[in-house]
């Protein structure tokens, strides 16, 4: 490949790639994101290669690895173009049948189609599946079309046009103005206007300036940034380069956590390829703009995702936050003005340049333009990564896209914003999801985690879980965070053990206040949210644990016991077989009982029972 040295070189390549495109030719796209890979999508790829060769179809059918489609619980996912036939939970042994029926006979393999868990309806095309139908995938959508390890795939879909346009036809001020007009807000959680951050960096004194991609995503259950970096790394790089041009930076860093091996592999390859194609490096497309990118690996401390801690980590120190009375935009990496943005924020930039701030502002709500990717997990029927316009009500996300609560249970709460987010109850489900409204409700956007809980979740236990996580992930510098979270965790643990007292609620309120108000960084300042929000919306549940020594959701082991309903039990003995401590007593054939002196409340008997005879009290 010859280096592209001008915009016309790029356009020529784009045309050439488009002319190679045969719209009628079948393409089998296979998701090779981490989720699908875990379910052997690598083997499926090989099985396809083998089967196509066996039938002499290798020249007639293309095979393509793509990034994550988002519907990970249905993985491995394959989509056959141009019809967009979507098969879910495919196994290597299904491949001969798919080739025979779909590629040769042009029929669908019905058993591999997505079946709606609520209506039982089957859908042949990806776009009809409710999980996708109600989304607006302007950022994430290209993941399913692009092979992340092949830059030409990205270029073929008008990739790097936004960068070419910006650096050859606009001056940096114009680019900056467009991003400001679009009112893009930081997708890492705080929602700070990106344009203003860039402007501050641009105007700050200092010759050397830096741009950084924060890919140190660490919220439990959230993986939007990983999927973008794995699935479409050039989109992020293009955004970064445009930002660097607007700011006046010549050097950029992508800080990726070590635990994301595929994201690291793909972003490293992308940087390498972009350099080979002349889309990074010296004199990009003959514009005179130089920009280079280095990928840095993080050692995996949650707190390193905090901007000042991340900067320390890049500098080679421990990932510990610093006071921010002087903004990183003025004095950041090695004391130079630095703009640090989240993966998804950078991925929004090419879109704004291509389609304009006006178009961008037409998506989302007034002060919250654009879309946001969320990781929808927990007790909903459809889980995965979703992208919706900001301002979409929680109810639409949970019921339309998520398909409602699993097993017909009742909704209880949704926790947004990662471990330091708050729990939002039923009465606020119609609130539109945006940066401002979530904060008003005592939660936050965070990087976009969304954990749905049903009636079987104990909110004290949930708060305890998040305190446990944050306790271990606090860097330990501020005593308010280090000791505050630890004490909250201890009190919550006592309450779940039935050892709580009335004074504990008061203590929790004090500890939550001091952790929030006295700590330095966002980890400590938001860590109390799970406690504050559950105390606010689910106080009765705390009181039941303390006063009646009762866990209404039936979760806290010390406060529950299992029993068997003799009316329902037919003495089949299944529970007896699975019990590891021989707590199930009685003869086979007659109703049996549980000896609570031995029972360890693991709940396996309840899972094993086919007659719903095991009860929790």
């Amino acid at each position, binding site marked *: 490949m010859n280096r592209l040295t001008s915009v016309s070189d790029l356009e020529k390549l784009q045309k050439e790639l488009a002319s190679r495109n045969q719209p009628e030719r079948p393409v089998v796209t296979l998701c090779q994101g981490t989720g699908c890979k875990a379910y052997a999508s690598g083997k499926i790829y090989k099985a396809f290669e083998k089967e196509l060769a066996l039938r002499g179809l290798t020249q007639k059918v293309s095979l393509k690895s793509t990034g994550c489609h988002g519907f990970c619980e249905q993985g491995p996912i394959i989509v056959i173009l141009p019809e967009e036939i979507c098969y879910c939970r495919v196994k290597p042994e299904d491949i001969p049948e798919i080739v025979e029926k779909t590629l040769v006979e042009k029929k669908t393999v019905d058993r591999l189609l997505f079946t709606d868990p609520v209506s039982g309806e089957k859908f042949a095309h990806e776009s009809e599946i409710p999980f996708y139908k109600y989304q607006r995938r302007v950022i994430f959508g290209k993941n399913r079309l692009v092979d992340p390890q092949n830059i030409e795939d990205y270029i073929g879909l008008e990739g790097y046009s936004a960068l070419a346009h910006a650096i050859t036809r606009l001056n940096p001020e114009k680019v900056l103005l467009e991003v400001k007009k679009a009112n893009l807000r930081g997708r890492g959680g705080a929602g700070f206007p990106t344009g203003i951050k860039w402007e501050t960096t641009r105007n700050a004194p200092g010759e050397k300036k830096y741009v950084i991609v924060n890919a140190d995503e660490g919220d439990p259950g959230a993986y939007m940034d990983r999927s973008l970096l794995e699935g479409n790394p050039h989109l992020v790089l293009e955004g970064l380069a445009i930002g660097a041009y607007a700011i006046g930076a010549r050097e950029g860093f992508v800080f990726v956590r070590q635990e994301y091996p595929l994201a690291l592999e793909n972003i490293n390859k992308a940087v390498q390829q972009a350099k080979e194609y002349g889309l990074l490096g010296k004199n990009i497309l003959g514009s005179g703009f130089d920009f280079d990118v280095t990928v840095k690996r993080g050692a995996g401390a949650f707190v390193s995702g905090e901007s000042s801690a991340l900067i320390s980590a890049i500098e080679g120190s421990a990932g510990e936050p610093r*006071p921010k009375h002087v903004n990183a935009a003025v004095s950041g990496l090695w004391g130079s003005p630095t703009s640090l943005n989240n993966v998804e924020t950078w991925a929004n930039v090419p879109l704004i340049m291509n389609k304009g701030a006006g178009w961008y502002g037409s998506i989302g709500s007034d002060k919250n333009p654009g879309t946001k990717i969320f990781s929808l997990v927990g007790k909903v029927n459809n889980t995965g990564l979703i992208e919706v316009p900001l301002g979409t009500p929680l109810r639409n996300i949970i019921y339309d896209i998520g398909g409602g609560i699993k097993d017909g249970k009742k909704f209880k709460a949704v926790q947004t914003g990662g471990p330091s987010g708050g729990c939002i109850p039923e009465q606020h489900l119609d609130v539109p999801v945006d940066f401002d409204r979530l904060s008003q409700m005592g939660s936050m956007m965070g990087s976009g985690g969304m954990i749905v809980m049903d009636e079987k979740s104990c909110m004290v236990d949930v708060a305890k879980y998040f305190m446990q996580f944050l306790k271990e992930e*606090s860097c*330990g510098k501020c*005593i*308010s965070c280090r000791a*505050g979270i630890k004490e909250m965790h201890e009190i919550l643990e006592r309450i779940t053990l039935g050892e709580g*007292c009335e004074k504990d609620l008061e203590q929790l309120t004090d500890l939550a*206040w001091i952790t929030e108000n*006295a700590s*330095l960084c966002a980890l400590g300042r938001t860590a109390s949210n799970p406690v504050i929000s559950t105390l606010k919306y689910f106080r009765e549940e705390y009181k039941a644990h303390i006063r009646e020594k009762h866990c209404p959701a039936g979760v806290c082991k010390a406060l529950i016991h299992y029993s068997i309903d003799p009316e329902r039990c037919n003495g089949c003995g299944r529970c007896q077989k699975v019990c590891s401590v021989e707590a199930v007593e009685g003869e086979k054939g007659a109703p049996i009982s549980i000896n609570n002196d031995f029972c360890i409340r693991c709940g396996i008997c309840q899972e094993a029972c086919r007659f719903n005879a095991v009860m929790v009290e």
Partner: protein
Amino acid sequence: MITLTINGKKYEAQKNQNLLQVALDNGIEIPHLCYHEKLSPYGGCRLCQVEVTKGKKVELTTSCTYPAVQGIQVETETPRVQRARRLMMKLILPMAPESPKIQKLARELGAEYIPSSCRSREKGDSCIKCGLCIRACEELVGVSTITFSSKGPERKVVPPFEEEPESCIGCGTCVHVCPTGCITMEDLGRKRKLERWKRILNMKVCNDCSNPYIPAAQVDYYLKRTGDTTLTEWFDLCPDCR
């Protein structure tokens, strides 16, 4: 020169000064444990909270890490500040309940330790992880013998790999700056022992009175650092015999 307001009164400050230092220089008391005027501010104990008004923004912040800025208003005794200090002290006290300095400060801030039936706080090892010893060893002495290890509640101050630190010269600066007195140094005849760092040093003996008076490693470090070999003889005698 910068002018700012503290508790309604105007004060002058130098550029690069922090608010805590400005207050202390002007006789305004702000409680603090992890700050020392000769060391870089750290902001770990979170006790020196003040309320700063800058433009429309009012924030509770640690005064040791906040730079003196023209025109800001600082309040050191608002109810919010007092609440923050009291609650901070409640967290700190159980870490070093035997320390007289900590006990005194807790009394002053209204955070006395009341053992209650629903509290089972673990007793700490008296170290509050303020990091003064680490900064003193690095910034004043220049040997960086100790550092923080682990994170969260597991955080502790240790020599590398928790082994006897060869770099420690036994000068005792860490002992001197520690606010809780949790670092001890004992002179046992010809040996000096710093229990916390697992460090045992040989003492140099005075040529005249034969009394051990300084760790040999400290003399070596001093000579190396100054490059002045003529001082070798000076160290042959103890201060009493010089």
